[in-house]
Every structure is written in structure tokens, then in C-alpha cells.
């Protein structure tokens, strides 16, 4: 591992947190977003990185969201974009 990928994943999580900070439940929103769009390998990579390297440089909301996911607590969908049951969307 180069470490670059892990740093990038942390950056991505921070970026998501910064953009979802106005959501009613920011931690759940960030966790939901990451759960919906990141592959399990990416999650494992970032979990391992945080376990090894500590949590410096990670946004508190992102950190809390990743902690929820690491504990196996997937939040319910926070938007229609991440709601798997919402596929009337393009069904018209």
C-alpha cells in the first residue's frame, strides 16, 4: 500500500462531511452516503488506516460516520438518492 489511497479516502470522507454539514443528521447522512457509494474494499481500507494511523486530520463528523459503519451500524437512507427502495424514480 502506498498510503496515498488511504489519504485520499480520508480526504473524500472529509469532503463529504463538509458538504453534508447542513443535513438534519450529519453523521447519519455521511455514513449513508459512504455506505451507498463506496465499495467494501474502500471501507476496509479506510477502517484499517484509521485503526493504524489514528484519527488526525479527519473531520469529526466523518470520523463519527466511519465509526458507525465500522461497528456495522448502517443508517437508514437519508435521501432519495441513497434509498434503494426508491426506484419508482425512473419508472415514471
Amino acid at each position: 500500500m502506498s498510503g496515498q489511497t488511504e489519504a485520499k479516502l480520508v480526504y473524500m470522507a472529509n469532503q463529504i462531511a463538509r458538504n453534508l454539514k447542513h443535513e438534519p443528521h450529519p453523521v447519519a447522512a455521511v455514513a449513508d452516503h459512504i455506505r451507498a457509494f463506496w465499495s467494501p474494499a474502500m471501507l476496509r481500507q479506510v477502517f484499517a488506516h484509521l485503526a493504524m494511523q489514528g484519527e488526525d486530520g479527519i473531520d469529526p463528523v466523518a470520523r463519527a460516520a466511519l465509526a458507525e459503519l465500522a461497528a456495522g451500524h448502517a443508517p437508514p437512507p437519508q435521501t432519495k438518492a441513497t434509498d434503494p427502495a426508491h426506484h419508482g424514480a425512473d419508472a415514471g
Partner: protein
Amino acid sequence: MGYERQADFGTPEVRSDTQVTLEIDGRAVTVPAGTTVMRAAAVSGGSIPKLCATDNLKQFGSCRLCLVEIDGMRGTPASCTTPVTEGMKVHTQTEKLAKLRRGVMELYISDHPLDCLTCSANNDCELQDQAAAVGLRDVRFGYEGANHLEAQTDASNPYFDFDATKCIVCSRCVRACDEVQGTLALTVEGRGFGSQISAGVKSDDFLSSECVSCGACVQACPTSALMEKAVTEIGKPERAVVTTCAYCGVGCTFRAEMRGEQVVRMVPWKDGKANRGHSCVKGRFAWGYAQHQDRVLKPMVRESIDQPWRETSWEEALGFAASRFKAIAAQHGNNALGGIVSSRCTNEEGFLVQKLVRAGFGTNNVDTCARVCHSPTGYGLKTTFGTSAGTQDFDSVEDSDVILVIGANPTDGHPVFGSRMKRRLRQGAKLIVIDPRRTDLVRSPHIQADYHLPLRPGTNVAVLSALAHVIVTEGLIDEAFVRERCDWDEFQHWAEFVGQERNSPEFLEPVTGVPADLIRGAARLFATGGNGAIYYGLGVTEHSQGSSTVMAIANLAMATGNVGRRGVGVNPLRGQNNVQGACDMGSFPHELSGYRHVSDAATRALFEAEWGVRIDPEPGLRIPNMLDAATDGLFKGLYIQGEDILQSDPDTKHVAAGLAAMDCVIVHDLFLNETANYAHVFLPGSSFLEKDGTFTNAERRIQPVRKVMEPLNGYQDWEVTQELARALGLDWNYTHPSQIMDEIARLTPSFAGVNYARLDAEGSLQWPVNDAAPDGSPIMHIEGFVRGKGKFVVTDYVPTDERTGPRFPLLLTTGRILSQYNVGAQTRRTENSVWHPEDLLEIHPTDAENRGIKSGDWVRLASRSGETTLRATVTDRVAPGVVYTTFHHPATQANVVTTDYSDWATNCPEYKVTAVQITPSNGPSEWQQDYAEQTRQARRIAGSAMEPAE
């Protein structure tokens, strides 16, 4: 079908609720009020001679050939300018009319070369037809008088000639340029007998003039005065096949006019609902790449990328690819494999690639080039409206009163729709342009933007928040719409946010660089000017806040009540021909077709039952994540159909490193593209002319692509994918793409009513097409939003982390030019390079002077990611502090300098904001020199002339 000219009713169709019945040559005819006598005669099956009239141009009344007699009316009025009236009795064939018409034709023919047998338009010439129609037998005036028969031919345009000796000065070309294209490049110079068609000023020829080579003039010409060079060289077409263009997301339909297996010309299909009979220089003329000598027609393999290619059989190439992929899966697991779906290929081909990845490779590691263009549109519009697509059809613009264009340059990127937009603007619609550059739309003939907001790159969200601030704080909300159609609590939360002082135009002016009064004026105009329509492009999506910007646009449309009817809406202008379709087909790693998340068990069950395999419930890797995983040694094999990620994706060095780290890269393409330098297997692709299928354009319009010639490589792309699947052990047995569409319809609710028989019968269908919308959906969210209540999302401005500073003080933004397309793989292999032979760097005069740079100088363009060199052009189209270039040429490799920053929600790269420095240079950068040599090495083919002598 055989070859016959497209029907021409002489004057445009008129829409009216009132019907008028008249009598033409004793036959009763009923037409809408306002219709001309000429059109009424044509629609009833009759024919009145004409030369200056054609049905995509306003009536002109110049040639005097279409004269008729009407009971109770004096003289012989021109049928093209005479509207029908109730009970009118028209006579189109009388002795008096015949004599008059012959007299007119005699005058025309007395100054026309009598070389019909050797003329390129012989048997396909309206002048010839009309001479026959009026029974012209001799010319009493002789041919010795003053004439124009010595005029010189203007052959400067690479695609068509202007032979003034054949010109009858009917003005159809001039009017087509004015009315259809809106460029106003042509004029009638001189008076009376001296009148002649001129491109630009007298010293201009067609190439040096403002002509954009859209072909409208050539199409309009009733003689061979304006004629495609290909017709002159090849001859008159023998047959015509209607198909869909493979360039941008407008999705123009064309008649491919053929002679044998050879394309003679592509002529816009007048019944095409996306283009309404118009075209641009790319679709109309730049199809020569399909037969270009660079096409690779035999499969090739090599053990490693430092070896030359070895041509081989399809069987061996597919076997080689399959064995490598099986070995990778065995050693590293299924998730070490992936695929990329092409937005240039058909829906059916895209569907098969993602099916191969999910069902064959056993992973969801599939992505598409929408990742680098419109993925934020999918996320943003699904979140706010509930559907991952634009809301309108293109016709909708005809009813717009205020058009807001943000981050789009439709006259270059989507020129045929750009012309339709310009037509509406010339009719009086207001225009707001939000763009760092002064695009052509800001000021062009008869068009002047009411507001141009030249924002600092990267501040879209701030500008949109400021617009919303004005609308909210000045009480310009459409409250009735919001209360009825949107979630009121979410609206109030949003309104409270944008209403804060920190979102005011004045507070944000130092951030955006846009004077507050301009933002206030634009906001008031948009909110109060009638039907407001928003059109946007990659200048919105390719930012670190691309998804936020899309949602901010949706907020603005909802707040002003501009959704759910003609003339309004949120309209993403899609880059590639089938970006919409590729996304619809389940090409994203987290979604199956119809945008259904892979975690949804019910949806997976449908696919698992149809395909007989288990579908992974977890999202796969996006393209940048695949490349990251490759450099980490975790991702080993990639099948890329019809994409050139090395040139099109950001941070070229990182892409190269990722590709180089893989064990097996399969490139399936027309050409040995830049990505193929890193490939182990090359599978030849087929062009859009060589395949059947469908494309879906930016208005969700599914249109047929029809095979007009046999594939030069022997197989259509869907067949190649099927053979690869079979080599991997899958039992696929499609014999025609219609069967793939049937499978798509079975599995995708929004496509439930789509099949080839309907597409053939109706020409196109706009999804959703299903029980709820059996005839399709030209406009969405009419009664309510697809998601239920429209969702307002707070979109706080978060500055990009890409910052200017002492080392990199300028901001680079990138874009396109009319004549070239994307990475240029197609257009660079045509004569279009006459207009754009290289990428140029636009720089403001002040920035240029500070650096001692003049137009034409070589400059070094450097960023934190890398550097390249190209030539500069000094222009005030860009603001001080901003530079701009295109990315059409691999020699420039503009993406060497773009960064790894991307959209927070979708990882769409931030192409539009890169901090750079510009300095004078005297040659290619080290990267360019290395890359040129590496490319030469990587493209060697054993045993061919491309293999350098030892």
C-alpha cells in the same frame, strides 16, 4: 430504402386551433389557418413549381415561379406568401401560369451552365426538376448576353464547394444561415444583375469567413452551386438509411445517403425530433474517421506492454483475454476485475458490458465516462426531483421567456440545440449567461446577453446562492408552486439559509468576482420574466461541488415555479451521444439499470432470475478508485470499451501508473488510442455506421442507430462483447440487438414500453415509456415530482482546495471547440482539424503582457500535477487571472496538468479549476517528449511497417 429527396412542403408548418377549408384545382383541402397556399397544395398531394421556397425557411416570395390564380383575386399571387382563406378557390395549372413560369425559367436558364449531364447534381437538382415541370423547351434570349458563367469556384471549405456559375441567387443559403443556423455569415452582395452570394466580406472565402460549416446552406441550395465535395467525387446516392449521430448529446438524426457500401453524405433528417432537420459541422461532415486508415481491423495481443503488438485471430485474442482474466480472478479474486462502459456505444452494447462485469466477472466494478462528466447530474437531480435526467424536450425552448445558461457553451458543444436556442433569443427571449469566459452566446449577431456573470472559476455555488438570496429576500418566490409541489419544511430550511447575509451578492462579490448589481438584476429577471429555463453543462458538474451546483440549480427552478411545463425546467446538456443511455443502462458501480441501487434485494432478484447468477449487493469501484486500487496492487484487469481514459481522465500520470500496474488491459476501440499504449489485448471496434442499436440523447429520447454498412472489422461491438462473454464461459446467444433491448425492457421499469418495432414506427421514444406513460414523457414532473415532493437541499459554498498562490497564480479552466469533439479521436481524423489543428491557451492581455507573451508564442503550462506546452492566443474572452484551453489533442495532453480533486458526491473530476503558472517556452515539456517516444514504442506492430527496423 432507395434514394429519393426528402419531402419539401415549400413553407413551414403552421400550428393553429382553427382549420380552414379551400379548393385547389377542384380538390377540397383542409389545413390550419395561416398555412400558405403552397403548403396546402403540397400536403394535399399537389405540387406548385418553386425555387426560392423550402419548408424550413420563412416564405420569401422572390423567384416568381410559384404563381397561382385565385378566384376573385387580381393578378397571379405567389402561392408561397399567400395564406389560405375559407372557401378560397385556387388554380395552380392554367395556360396563363404556364406561360409566366416558362418566362421566369427562361431567364434563369439563360444565365446557367448547360452542363447537366456532367453536373454533380444531375437528376438531383431542383432547377432541373422545375425546368421540366414548367415545360421549358427553349430560351428565347439565347446564352450570349451578360452572364456569370466565368465566376470562380470557391473550394476553400474542406467539405463543400461554392460554384457561383450555378447560383440562381434565390437566397435560400443566406436565409438558412440566418434563420436555421443563426450565424448570419452569408449575404447577397451587390444589386440587380450584379447580385451574388458572398461569405463574409468581399475578401473572404467560405473558409476564412464566419461560416461554421453546419451545412444548412448546402442543404438549402436548389442547384449544385453549393455542393458536397463527396457527391462530386463519388456520385449521386443510391439509397438512404435514417440513423442517429454519434457525436454530442443532442442526438441529431441523419439520412446516411449511400452509394454501395460508401457513405456519400450525411443529411439531417427533417423528421428528426431532436434536430428538426439541422446539423453541425461534426455530424454533417466529420464522419470520415469511420473509414480512416488508422482504424485497426485485426485483433492484437502482447504479453507485456513493452512488447510490440502481434496481430492474431479473434479466437486467439478472446481466448488470451479470457485466460488472463480467469487467472486474475483465481489469484486475486473477482473484485480485481472491472469494466468501463462507453457513452459512445449503443444502449444495448453498454447493457451487455455491465452485464458481463456483473454476471461474468462477478463484481460490480463497472463504471462509465459519465463519471468524468455528468455523474453529478445523476446524483443532484435524483436527490431533488427524483429522477436522474433532464426535465424537458428540446422543443420546450420555443416557449422559454428567460434562458439561463450556466457552465455551458451550446454554440460550440451542442451546436444544433444552440441554434434553436439562438432562434428563440432572436425572437425576444431574455438571456443570462453564467460563465468565466465570454462565450459566443454572450454576444453574437442579433443576440446580446441581458446579463453575463463572469464568475471566478469554482464559485458556481456561491453565485447560485446569491441569486437565491435575492429571490428569497425580495419576495420573488413562487409560493403557490412551492407549497403545492415541494416539501414546505425543507423549503423553509433552505430559504432561511440562503436568506442569510453571508449569501448576499454583496457579501459574496469578493469571492465570485461578480458585481452584486449584476446578480441582483439577473435574479429579478429570472424570477419575474415568465417561463424560466436553465441549461447547464460540464462547467457545472466538473467541480468539487458539481453535485451541489446541480442541486442549487434545481432549488432555483423550484423556488421560481419553473418545473413541470413547456418553456421551463432544468436541462443538462449531455456531452457524448449516449451519456444518458449509458447511465440508464446500469453502468455505475452502485446501480442496476433504471438507477436502482444494487443493495435493493427485490431489484437484484429480478436480474438474478433473468441472468441465473448472484449479483453482488455491494457497490463496486468507480474509475478513479479502480486506478487507485491498481497502483496498490489490488486491481488487475480492465475491459474498456470505446473510451480513452488516459487522455480524458484527470491527472494523466496517475492514470498511466494505474494502467501500467495491471496484468491485463483489454481495449476495444476503433483506433490504437492513448489508453491502448497500456493494453495487452486490442479488440477492433465498429463505428456507428456499422451497427444496429439505440442511443439516448439529453432529452431522454431513445433513437435507432441503424447499420448502413457491414462492420469493417467483421463484428458489431455487441457481438465482440458477447464473444468475450462466451470465452469466459457464459452462454449468451443474442442474434440481434433488439433482443437485448427486449431484455432491458423486461428488467427496467422506465423502458418497459420500448421495443424496436415501436422505435421504427414512431422514430423515437422519450423515457419513461411504460403503463403510466405509454407514449413516453417529453416533459417530466408535470403533475408532481417523481420523488413525490420536490426537495430543497441546502448547498453551502465550500471553496475548492485547489488554490492559487505565488507559484501558481492563475486559474485554468478547460472546454471544447465547435470543430473538435472530446479527445479528438474522431474529429482529428477528419478535415475538421483545418479549424483547430492544435489546442491553444487563451490568456488575458494583462496576464500575457506581464509574462512577455504574444499570440502564437509557445508557453509552458504548469500546475502542481504536471506541465505541458502549447501555443498562446491573447484574448479578453477570458478575465484577468483565468486561462483556458481545450483537450482535443494528445500532443498537448491538457490533463497532465489537471488535478486529482473531484466532486464530493460522485468523484467527477474538477477539470474546471486548476491553479497554474504560464511562462514562455521554446519547446515540448519533458513529459511530452517522453510520452511521444513511449507512444511510438507502444504502437509497434510486429511484422508491419509500424515496427521500426532493428
